[in-house]
């Protein structure tokens, strides 16, 4: 029991969970609305898109990189998909749009992949560049504008509900979107890949030590290339889901999400240096940030104070986890790389 406790205390997930619980209670106290079925459903549905992005960002960070291009990539691919379908007056179901956006995502991701894996360029710089290029293609070449009427198959998918949660007191209802399943499925796939395939272990391996990975016989090029292709596909899917759920495509309103998504992943204990981090932590960190961003009104933070509050939250959250880490390092004497026997 004691050992379990001690083990728990050393884990970042533990602190994040405490933070989530504390925040929930705070929201409950301030609004009386947190622990209602429909509020929980609302939060889960708000989690879908950031959650998908976070999964992609997480894998890249684990591999030792940083990707800031996923919002631009998702925007371009969802826009291209929607534009083509609207222009051809597509009336079918959701399958084709998904396949199309996955293809676009794979192609755009491959651009990142080639630049990073083949030319061995730093991922941050590459994705800064491609994010600019993707944006330029979308707005310059494709002349992107808001698309307000999307194919019926897409909007019915976006508004379809798994179930509807009703708050018995206020009578408010919230829809659990079918799209939530996409998050669950991708989460399961990513979990499987990371934990149960050599490919996934390879990601951790190159994040820990790329040279060793190469020497051990991992195909580093392929691992990186496929990583960016996969992340491109996940991001694209997120973009498409967002379009479906909003029943309109807005080319630019996902841009700028990257930093918050990365902040969530790192908050969840993923080392930005690569090689370590758990999927649980990643999701918990994301949930925490989504909760904060979507509960400022419930918390009663006045509009003018919301930016300030968010800033303080990030700094304090990061500060605590950073201090925690450096304390752990000190305790282990890693500063002097002391040998533990």
């Amino acid at each position, binding site marked *: 029991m004691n050992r379990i406790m001690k083990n728990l205390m050393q884990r970042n997930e533990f602190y994040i969970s405490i933070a989530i619980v504390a925040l929930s209670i705070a929201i409950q106290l301030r609004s009386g609305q947190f622990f209602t079925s429909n509020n929980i459903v609302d939060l889960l549905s708000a989690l879908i898109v950031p959650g998908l992005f976070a999964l992609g960002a997480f894998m890249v960070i684990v591999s030792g990189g940083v990707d800031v291009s996923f919002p631009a990539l998702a925007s371009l691919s969802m826009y291209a998909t929607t534009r083509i379908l609207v222009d051809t007056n597509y009336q079918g179901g959701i399958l084709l749009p998904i396949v199309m956006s996955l293809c676009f995502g794979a192609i755009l991701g491959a651009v990142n992949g080639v630049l990073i894996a083949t030319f061995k360029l730093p991922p941050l710089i590459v994705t800064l560049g491609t994010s600019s290029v993707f944006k330029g293609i979308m707005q310059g070449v494709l002349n992107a504008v808001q698309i307000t009427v999307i194919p019926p198959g897409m909007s019915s998918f976006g508004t379809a509900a798994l179930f509807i949660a009703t708050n018995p007191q206020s009578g408010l209802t919230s829809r659990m979107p079918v799209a939530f399943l996409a998050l669950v499925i991708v989460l399961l796939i990513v979990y499987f890949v990371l934990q149960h395939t*050599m490919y996934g*272990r390879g990601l951790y*391996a190159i994040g820990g*030590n790329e040279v*060793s990975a190469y020497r051990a*016989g991992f195909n580093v090029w392929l691992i990186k290339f496929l990583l960016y292709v996969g992340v491109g596909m996940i991001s694209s899917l997120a973009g498409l889901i967002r379009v479906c759920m909003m029943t309109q495509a807005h080319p630019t309103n996902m841009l700028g999400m990257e930093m918050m998504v990365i902040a969530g992943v790192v908050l969840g204990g993923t080392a930005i240096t690569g090689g370590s981090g758990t999927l649980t932590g990643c999701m918990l960190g994301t949930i925490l940030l989504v909760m904060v961003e979507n509960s400022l009104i419930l918390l009663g933070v006045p509009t003018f104070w919301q930016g300030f509050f968010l800033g303080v939250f990030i700094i304090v959250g990061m500060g605590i986890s950073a201090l925690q880490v450096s304390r752990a390092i000190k305790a282990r*004497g890693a500063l002097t790389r*002391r040998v*533990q*026997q």
Partner: protein
Amino acid sequence: MAQSVLKVVDIKKSFAGVQALKGVSLEIKAGEIHCLAGENGSGKSTLIKIISGVYTPDEGQIIFGDKVYSKITPIEAIRNGIQVIYQDFSIFPNLSVMENLAFNEELANKRKLVNRKRMKKIAQEALAKINFDVDLNAKVGSLSVASKQLIAICRALMLNARLIIMDEPTTALTRKEVNALFNIILDLKKQGIATLFVSHKLDEVFEISERFTILRNGEKAAEGFTSELDNKKFTYYMTGREFEDKPFVPTNVSEDPVLSVENLSMNGFYENVNFSLHRGEILGITGLLGSGRTELALSLFGIMQADTGTIKIDGEPVKLDSPETAINHGIGYVPEDRLTEGLFLPQSIGDNIIVSELDKLSSRLGIIDRDKKKEEIRQWVDKLSIATPNPDNACSTLSGGNQQRVVLAKWLSRDLKVLVLNGPTMGVDIGSKHDIHQILRRLAEQGLGIIIISDDIPEILTNCSKILIMRNGRISAALTPDEADTQVLARYMM
């Protein structure tokens, strides 16, 4: 005659203008223990990387039995029974022992899915081969250096290795662990597994190897049976020079100690440490890994703080709370690992030399006097004969021995009272090692107090005028070189 496991013929390789290998051939026979020696930068690591498929040779052939390759990939090398233990161990610090051990085999078998049961079995079998006991789920990064090395060895033993290559396997090990390693190598020999290893420590070469190959400047300088070799010849083949190692006799010892340490303790690291150092003396500290000597050194340099006790400089108690205060009190520290702690590799050699004396070369406002700086750099490059065409070149262009001289120069350029060196000649070849020892002796004669922390027993015995042995955070013995020899030291260490 045993069949050959590996043959390389006429290998050439060059990097951006440096011809690292100029046509080297080498043959390893089944079960033989072969030593590859040479000065820093003579091309040993390059040759090993070519054999293991990390580098592609410009010319030449790699032959396994009857298969002839002009280039290979790491996987092909592994399939042909080649396993390498790199200088940096090539481990994954972020992953578990089990994964570190099992990856190579899983990859060689082209497995796509992770099977923890199978991996566990592989790992357990690997550990069993050398009777090594460690928690399979521990993160390798949290283990001791020796354990890391053992893991690297275990990993190499799998996959029916026929040749195990070790690049300077003993740099990070103490004598006890070296003995264990040698037993393993002999065991492997019995199983018909050959070992090729690189080392700078002569006693080890003689103790374990049967045949040797010596490289000089990318060419083969000599090869043959170790039994036909002696210390002098070996050194001569490597360096083209001859050396004589006389024991150090301090000549210019001050009356009062320059540094005295009284009842110094740091909870969990070391306890009740007492010693004093006079100007002109060279004090040696040795002990096993984890005996607390590094922490003691770091406390003298202000990076770690002792809990109780006093440190006195010239009889005055001082409070050392940062490297800066230590330096201001005249204490310098040459760290264990020059690559990560001592040098700024991509920066110029010159800047590396003057980095600790910036304020001496600048006005009060922090503006650097360029002429003074240039003169200072030139002076130290000359004094320590650092081999470089231009001190503006990046420090990474220097060989290991020369890099170590740069680290020394960095400290000597300050007017120090005490210089602490942690592993001053780790990974440095005999030639440079000798030069560095001469420099240290000269400095002592000029009135500097020197502390050397080292695993290299001969180094301690020949260069120190006093020897402290640490065990479990305490000083277990204080000896003079005449009272000490390898056995005595080992007894106090364990």
